[in-house]
């Protein structure tokens, strides 16, 4: 017969609301990366729940596989897609959100009330008996006897999924990658010496990389202070007008 100890009760009543709040937060925050962090927290909470429920092995696996591997994968992909892009939470499909929330509340309500009414036919047993030889041993016993066939199938699935992901993510080149020399020639071919110097580094407004060209202020005008005083004194400063945003050819050539 299962006796739930007070520490577990306390742990539950602290962690469960936090998990639910984290899940809700995951739903409401704008940035995907925040969502991912909140989800990681929910998963860790669940791992604690597993361990509390005598599912030690699963709890560890949960941390290793989910919080460790799966969440990292998510974060990688987020990086790839654009880590600091924040979603707009305004709904574009009209009527979808009210319906979804009503349905979800209905779902949750009926689901919870169903659990409340459910009877299992006996009092909770607890896992003391099942775990007599240790949780991992008990699971292994099951996994390699009763569930050996599903286990093998699942392993096949895992291999297939890994291969499939590779196939999907693999990008087939249709043209040969241009060599550095070819890229350089192409830059000069554009006809603009400004372009020939290569693109400016990230986070810079400047449209030109040469030292004698002033940087541009946010309003698009030239910033004279960006030129070395020496060059200024030598009078080697180029007229910046042609680099102002209004004048500059601002079509972005996409890097292939």
């Amino acid at each position, binding site marked *: 017969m299962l006796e739930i100890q007070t520490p577990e009760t306390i742990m539950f009543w602290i962690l469960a609301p936090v998990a639910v709040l984290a899940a809700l937060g995951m739903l409401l925050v704008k940035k995907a990366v925040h969502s991912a962090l909140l989800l990681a927290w929910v998963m860790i909470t669940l791992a604690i729940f597993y361990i509390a429920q005598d599912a030690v092995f699963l709890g560890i696996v949960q941390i290793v596989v989910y919080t460790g591997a799966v969440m990292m994968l998510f974060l990688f992909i987020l990086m790839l897609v654009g880590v600091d892009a924040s979603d707009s939470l305004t709904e574009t*499909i009209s009527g*979808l959100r009210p*319906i*979804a929330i009503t349905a979800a509340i209905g*779902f949750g309500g*009926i689901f919870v*009330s169903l659990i409340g009414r459910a009877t299992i036919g006996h009092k909770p047993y607890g896992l003391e008996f099942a775990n007599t030889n240790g949780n991992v041993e008990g699971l292994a016993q099951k996994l390699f006897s009763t569930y050996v066939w599903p286990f093998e199938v699942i392993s096949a699935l895992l291999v297939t999924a890994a291969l499939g992901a590779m196939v999907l993510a693999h990008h087939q080149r249709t043209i040969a990658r241009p060599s550095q020399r070819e890229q350089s020639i192409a830059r000069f071919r554009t006809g603009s010496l400004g372009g020939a110097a290569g693109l400016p580094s990230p986070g810079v407004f400047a449209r030109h990389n040469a030292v004698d060209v002033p940087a541009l202020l946010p309003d698009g005008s030239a910033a004279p202070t960006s030129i070395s005083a020496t060059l200024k004194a030598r009078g080697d400063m180029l007229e910046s007008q042609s680099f102002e945003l209004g004048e500059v050819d601002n079509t972005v050539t996409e890097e292939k």
Partner: protein
Amino acid sequence: MTTSTSLVYLIALPLAGAVILLLAGRRADKWGHLLATALSASSFGVGLYQLSQMLSRPTEERAVTQKLFTWISVGSFNIDAGILLDQLSICFVLLITGVGTLIHIYSISYMSHDENRRRFFAYLNLFIASMLLLVLGDSYLNLYVGWEGVGLASYLLIGFWNQKPAYATASKKAFVMNRIGDMGLSFAIMIAFATLGSVSFSGVEEASHTASQATLTAIGIMLLIAAAGKSAQFPLQAWLGDAMAGPTPVSALIHAATMVTAGVYLIVRSHFIFDAAPTAQLLVVLVGAVTLTFGALVGTAKDDIKKALAASTMSQIGYMILAAGLGPAGYAFAIMHLLTHGFFKAGMFLGAGSVMHGMNDQVNMRRYGALRKFMPITFATFGLGYLAIIGVPPFAGFYSKDAIIETAFNAGGIKGILLGSTALLGAAITAFYMTRVMVLTFTSPERWEKDQHPHESPWLMWLPMAILAIGSVSTGFLFTRGDSLVHWLSPVFGEHEAHEEHFLPVIVVSGLALTAVVIGVSIALVKYQFSDVDAEAPQNVSIFTRIARKDLLQDSFNESVFMRPGQALTRLLVKTDDKVIDGTVRLVGTTAIGTGSALRKTQTGFARSYAVLILIGAVALIAGIWVVTQ
């Protein structure tokens, strides 16, 4: 019953002519008319031969039959293709082939300028064959074949010049109105088969002795409708005037002498039904009386010579129907009038054709006048026919018409007086309008255009007219001498006790009739011979004249009561079919398409909306569980 194997030639010869001429096409243009005439004449020859054979046999063995083959045999419905030639049929056979041959001869010349003369002769032969089949069939169904066959021939001949839309319409009108009559015949046959179990003349006659009054009345009324359709009797008379669209020999043969009298034949042939069904008989009499007045009245107002004659035909057939409705006493007189009428009316139509031939196809009598001088033979033959039709002794019409008037008076009681007076009145009007035709055409001052050159017709045309004129003069006398025709026909109708008591003495009736004729002739002479006649029909005439000119509003009536509602119904049904019935069918289609495109809207392509649907589905599912486990 005597059988014979040669009766079929009566029908087969002209039928072969029609088939050959129609199939041979233009190749037969040179000799087609000669072949047709020869075949018609040879059919007449067969008829004469049969008559001589018949005369050589004793009275009760004179009827001959021939069974060709089993035509239709299903269950108890057994119809043989059988021919019955008895004393009644032989009269018709000789009239049809005799007058028919004369009209063939006449047409050789009359139609000589028409490029489709061969086709015309083919139709004429087809008509002769059908008409012979009509009078020779030994059952109502065989009669029906001939009945519609003559309708077809009449349709083809009325519409012979169908390039004129009005003529094409006239032919269609004739066929359709005839079909209404045919419907009556169909009903009669159906009733006869359903109630009496037979449709042959002999079978029906036998069964009619035991049949109920109601059955026989129903059959009789249906036969009367059939007769009215074919014989242009009230209320199905409207087609006859328009039928004058056909070439004149056609009007003479079909619409005067033979086909239109088929109704009389039908009633007389079905005497056993009418004898036992007084109600039907009374209706026959009424139809006859109404039509003879109707036709006579229309005849007074017509300026078209052919239409005037057509109205006269209608009226004269009214006399025959009247006589046929008077029972055993009248049958023979109906046939007698039919035969004499066949001669004098055919002769007069041919005369009218001859006049038109000489007058560049002018038919308006107001544009004639004084043709006596230019067409003496036509005048003479037409005049003899005229004297016959108005009933001047000793011409044919006198005998036959007098006999009918007399029989009408003898019908007894109020009925007799009314019918007799109507017949007398009809005689007076007949005298009036026929004199009008005569005077306007031949004796009044000339009113034709200067560029017309009236001339006598060639001998091929006047010879038949002359022969028919001889018939108009003599037949009445021949038929009545010693009551020869009455006795000849009596085996067909059965002996009946002669009416001993006459309502009026014969001489008084004759006197009355002659007085009526004199009155009619005098009025006409005063009005047309001794006063000026306008070349244009005067428009400021009384309402009665105007109505009479419009055929007593028969067409307006038919148009407003049947045609326009019929057309409206047709339009309504066409619309109903498209909008309601097919509309319903299309609605099924559009509903399917509409439902599809409505449901397609839920397929936005947005994965999230599908997810919502899944969610809703899940809610419904667990709600279901929730309810079930309650």
